[in-house]
């Protein structure tokens, strides 16, 4: 019994949509960032799976996944720094209460 590439694609799609649901509906900035991490992981699963099934010798998908990891690490670092800066300024991290452009 073996698993084909479409099983991995369905799994990645489901994880992406769960992350999307959370990112759109959660009202805490930290939880939104967590859901964004779930979405990037779904994309990485897809890239690695397709690379494994289609071009295993060139490793292109694995390199793309590695660079996505770099960008995601930078993104979560900056995002959490932004959350901390927001908390310092407004004493809240609720998205509903952050509705002013003026600081």
């Amino acid at each position, binding site marked *: 019994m073996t698993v084909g590439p479409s099983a991995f694609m369905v799994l990645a799609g489901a994880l992406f949509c769960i992350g999307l649901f959370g990112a759109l509906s959660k009202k805490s900035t*930290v939880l939104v960032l*967590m859901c964004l991490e779930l979405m990037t992981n779904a994309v990485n699963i897809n890239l690695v799976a397709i690379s494994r099934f289609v071009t295993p010798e060139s490793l292109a998908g694995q390199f793309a996944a590695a660079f996505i*990891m770099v960008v995601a690490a930078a993104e979560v670092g900056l995002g959490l720094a932004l959350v901390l800066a927001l908390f310092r300024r407004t004493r809240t991290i609720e998205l509903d209460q952050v509705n002013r452009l003026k600081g």
Partner: protein
Amino acid sequence: MPESVAVVPFVVLSAGVLGGAVLVLLSRNVVHAAFWVLEVMLAVAGLFMLLSAGFLALVQIMVYAGAVSVLLLFTIMLTLRSREDAVRSLDLSWQAGVIALMVFAAIWTTISGFQLAIPTAPAITPGVADFGKLLFQGWALPFEIASVVLLIALVGVVWWLGDDR
């Protein structure tokens, strides 16, 4: 190296990924949600192992399970004013659910219309040594750009969180 992907580990890891992701959304406590994110990251690392991407599994554990989840917990703890703030309402809106379902329907339609030439995994599985060689041959420029991106992110975070002038 196995020539194909076995069903049982795939099902177990998929259940770990999807169940963990659902529990991230359903945890009322933010700290519990952060730990479920950590569990999802570890299950994804297992999936990478299953796909013979050992180096990426290692990086996944070090970067996501090691660094990102600790950063998430750190931020949660710095931004809670009291212990009771960690427990919050679920905040799940049906509009967001409709959008997510529509996106999933689109993905599902695309996948079911997608015919891949190779239904089973090829036997070739390059190891970490090949990964390193290829990285510094064809992918050297993106690699350097990635390090510049990380440097800029580091400087940006320090500048952002520095003392208010």
